[in-house]
């Protein structure tokens, strides 16, 4: 799948309390969570984010708590993919398990790109291309994780394994 969207740039160590503060965790609805997503560091984000936009971040994105509300809030905001230099491990597995597309790319994209510029991403190939035609390669997922992603998340994956009907 190829996606094109406007880029939001974030720096290193964006933690889950910044992605969605704990005081909003009494809801599990993606659209409700999205209304407060990243408001602490980027008040414009929940107001101006458009469906299909991408997040480009530095190292250790999603560090902190295990709250799945973090990928849910990002998904609820309409973000099509999060690209980071690295992800904190629980966020990484939560994204895979819940079907939020993520890519790990060692290039300093948060320095190289300008906020708001358009980016094209080929999710399967992990290929990222900016407006000037510069290309960056993201790290491929191991086949085991790719399977979970292809099945549409961990729940669908388990359902397949148990031979339960899709719902």
């Amino acid at each position, binding site marked *: 799948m190829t996606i094109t969207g406007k880029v939001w740039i974030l720096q290193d160590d964006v933690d889950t309390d910044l992605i969605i503060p704990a005081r909003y965790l*009494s809801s599990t609805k993606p659209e409700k969570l999205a209304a407060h997503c990243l408001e602490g560091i980027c008040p414009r984000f929940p107001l101006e984010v458009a469906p299909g936009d991408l997040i480009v971040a530095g190292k250790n994105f999603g560090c902190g708590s295990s709250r799945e509300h973090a990928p849910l809030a990002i998904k609820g905001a309409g973000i099509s993919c999060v690209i980071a230099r690295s992800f904190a491990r629980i966020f990484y597995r939560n994204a895979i398990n819940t079907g939020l597309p993520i890519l790990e790319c060692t290039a300093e994209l948060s320095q190289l790109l300008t906020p708001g510029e358009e980016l094209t991403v080929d999710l399967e190939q992990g290929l990222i291309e900016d407006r000037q035609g510069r290309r960056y390669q993201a790290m491929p997922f191991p086949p085991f994780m790719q399977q979970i992603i292809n099945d549409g998340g961990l729940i669908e994956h388990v359902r397949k394994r148990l031979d339960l009907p899709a719902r």
Partner: protein
Amino acid sequence: MAGKTMVEKILARGAGREEVSPGELINVKVDLALGNDITAPVAIKEFNRLGVKEVFDPDKIALVPDHFTPNRDLAAAEQAKVLREFSRYHRIKHYYEVGRMGVEHALLPEQGLIWPGQIVIGADSHSCTYGALGAFATGVGSTDLAAAMALGEAWFRVPSTLQFIYRGVLPPWVGGKDLILYTIGQIGVEGARYRAMELCGEAVEALSMDGRLTMTNMAIEAGGKCGYIQPDRVTEEYLDGRVEHPYQPVYSDPEALYEEVYAFDVSNLEPQVAFPHSPANSRPVGEASGIEIDQVVIGSCTNGRLEDLKVAAQILQGHEVHPRVRLIVIPATQLIYRQALEEGLLEIFVKAGAAVSTPTCGPCLGGHMGVLAAGEKALATTNRNFIGRMGHPESKVYLSGPAVAAASAVTGTITHPGEVV
């Protein structure tokens, strides 16, 4: 066969394999799966969506409503109700109601649910705490918990291991919290990302189980998948009379391969304070001295255990909380609360002018019981001081152990405990 670390051995057992190596992706059997009032409702929703009729084993699931309880508002009440009803329906053995409940990572070891060699997953990042008892324990998300409740399994990438050796004898007022804050300060918030942290050396061996649990609790703050301490005499004494389940302690081989080894001499370590907004901003307390604070919180899964309360009481005895400061003390579990009551600690706190709360996560994550206003500063014995963690995005949180926290509550500024006692 090359030597293996404790975690590699435990994961091999869980995967039904002779051995596993770092980097391998494996499926393991889970001995205990944990959720709380924030993460379990999401997991329960996913579990129901899966369409499985029964949980894999009602005795191997623990559900603890500890974050927003006693219910802080209507939405929290609804979430707690989801846990309660699910627990009743599936006859979940380890469900703890308010009044018997405690902060999960203090509660589970205390209740004898954790033992060496076990594989524990928790839909809460601080599930890494249980490594202090020689278990493999790690935080996962709600969807993982849902799958584990259905299958009794979880997928993992086998982590490589970093070894941390702490040499020397700890000075007075320096404990597990100072060791781990210092460590995170040295390696940074992603210094152990994806890796296991083996904590050892005489300074760690000299710690009580309470102090050890504080250390492994914060492995996640260095990005670690788990932190662990190999079982020894202290572990055995702690487990004795607490754990009925038979267990087999697992140890790292002497020739085990570590990705890196860090050695620290901690004989002269000062009490540590982590400045806003990162647990890795740790510095000796001297560098924080004089910083005025509005609130002090003593509690949480990091430092709300009996030993922590004893240290705080020792400092607060005969003193009063500074007029400008609000001191909030939260024993981490009902049993700790009772012990603190019986040992007269609560009386010391109340007489000093502290607010003492029933067990809850409360202010640790800015939930309730002490949320900060814009511009306010708190010193807390909790584990995170991210932007907005305890309330307003313009509030600030400093982290320390219970000794510095208690001393600072008396003076109103961040203070070395030696100056108060």
